[in-house]
């Protein structure tokens, strides 16, 4: 296609880099994409973000499962999920195609979930991650209502607000979020937008013309960016409701 997408094809080594990273081998090309050493993480200079290339997502839900495993998400609840849609095709011999859209907390830079919290339990870390202080949260669910992305829920096991943390515990330890680590298609890329020299910033810059966020009109300034985001899916999707919906069990 264009230059940007070529560059994104060029981003494929990320998955290789990921494996190398696990082995503790320093990787030069994707160093900025990967979380650096913990010592650097504490300087507060980074601003973590995610770039999701929808074209590479194969809808396998490996991220969904790894997130549940990593974060002990209760049955029926999800911090991330790949919303899947069947879309009628007009320009093909096939009747319908599948559209997949990985969703998670956008770690908005102007997050509506923060000002509503009556006890300041929801806050933005210096590195841009929107977090919940579990010791303070009263479980009032005001933030659940205020998030325009349905990213939050009340965790039945803890009685507190829950959502994607960008795997802050892993990032602080210099690891990648679990979903990024497991992404089969290499569609999820994680990095620091503040490091203008880094690979992640370069990827973002190259993809700029086609970069989109969800519900841009709300001006929440999401830190999850998409490549290949179809206009029909940026807001509340107009279509027939889900055929299968997981439901969490009543208090176990």
């Amino acid at each position: 296609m264009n230059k940007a997408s070529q560059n994104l094809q060029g981003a494929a080594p990320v998955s290789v880099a990921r494996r190398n990273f696990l082995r503790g081998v320093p990787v030069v090309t994707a160093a900025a994409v990967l979380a650096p050493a913990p010592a650097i993480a504490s300087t507060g200079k980074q601003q973590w973000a995610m770039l999701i290339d929808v074209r590479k997502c194969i809808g396998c839900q490996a991220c969904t499962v790894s997130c549940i495993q990593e974060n002990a998400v209760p049955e029926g609840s999800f911090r991330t999920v790949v919303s899947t849609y069947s879309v009628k095709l007009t320009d093909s011999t096939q009747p319908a195609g599948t559209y997949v859209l990985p969703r998670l907390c956008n770690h908005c830079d102007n997050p509506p979930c923060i000002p509503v919290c009556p006890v300041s339990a929801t806050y933005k870390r210096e590195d841009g991650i929107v977090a919940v202080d579990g010791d303070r949260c009263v479980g009032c669910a005001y933030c659940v209502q205020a998030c325009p992305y349905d990213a939050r829920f009340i965790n039945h096991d803890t009685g507190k607000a829950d959502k994607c943390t960008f795997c802050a515990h892993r990032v602080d330890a210099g690891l990648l979020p679990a979903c990024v680590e497991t992404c089969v298609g290499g569609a999820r890329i994680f990095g620091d937008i503040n490091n203008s020299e880094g690979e992640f910033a370069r990827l973002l810059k190259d993809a700029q013309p086609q970069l989109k966020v969800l519900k841009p009109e709300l001006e929440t300034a999401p830190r999850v960016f998409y490549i290949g985001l179809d206009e029909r899916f940026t807001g509340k999707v107009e279509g027939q409701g889900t055929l299968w919906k997981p439901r969490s069990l009543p208090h176990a």
Partner: protein
Amino acid sequence: MNPNIVETINVAREVAWLPWAVQYLFLIGLSYGAWLLSLPGVVFRRPGWAGISRLALLGALVCGLAAPVALLADLHQPGRFWHFYAYFTPTSWMSWGAFFIPVYLGGLLIYAWLAFRPELARHAQSGGKLAGMAGVLAYGGHESRGALKAAALLAFIGAALVALYTGAEVAVVQARPLWNTPLLPLQFFVTAFAGAVGLVLLFNRYSVRDEAANRRLAGVLAATQAVALAVGALWLALGVSGISPVHARALAEVGPSANWQLSALWAVAATVLTLVLAWKRPGSGLLIGLLALHSAWMMRWSIFIGGQEVPKTGAGYYTYSLPLGPEGLMGIVGTAGLWVFLFVLITTLLPLDRLAAGADDNAAA
């Protein structure tokens, strides 16, 4: 709905503000509404209002005391309610609410005590059930108009703040277009006040059956229903015409749903019926009272629970079915039970009949 897109996999987010929250908004609304109805008789001593206003004050008290329990139960960490006071957050209406509720309830309790002191003393003298307790509570049984007016002012400030915050807290949620309209607080207020009129109509019916009071209340109720219809019509007009984008969004969010069309139709029919009955047959106190209470509750249920059935990003609607446990039906039954308990307790000290009838002394003054 776009028939070309079918969602095959997505998350269904559960209702996070539970039926407890509906009960809270319902009860606190009835309480401040009833409190307003207590003013003409108790504070301003308008002729013909004494009985109505005392019954209303009883309603304000019972509902006001039950409401915070429902609110606490809606927290998923009720034991941490003190965090509201330890970590005040001025950007959050809910945080402000935690401070407004005690202002209102404090004002209400002092005001009710001052208003009912002579009654409590009377009960103590009559030697009825819990007469000893009534005697202690009466604390001499004197009437102190100055203090009463001061307490009324405090309660007024509290009631206004509570009415403001309960409406604003919901109306500011941009993520839910149905809630995010400036008319919502007004709609909450009007239906709360109408519900309170309904409650007093029931109290009157089950005590002295004062026909004059019944008619007076029916007149007030008819007016509230007319206002409710006018505000509803304005809401719709703003939405349909597109003059107000927030109303248009709210309408677009629920308009296509058959369930919502039914709810809206139901609400309009109930309001029109109440209006016509209250106006043409003011004697039907029991029926219009129940209708008004039902409308106030239904309005909160549909907006609150129904509003949470609209996915923010996913297609279609979630379906809510009322769980039978504490997070559902038991929440409703529990608050109703608490209400009955408080009602029985308070009316033992302050019997309904006496509140409704022992009015002439005040009215004459």
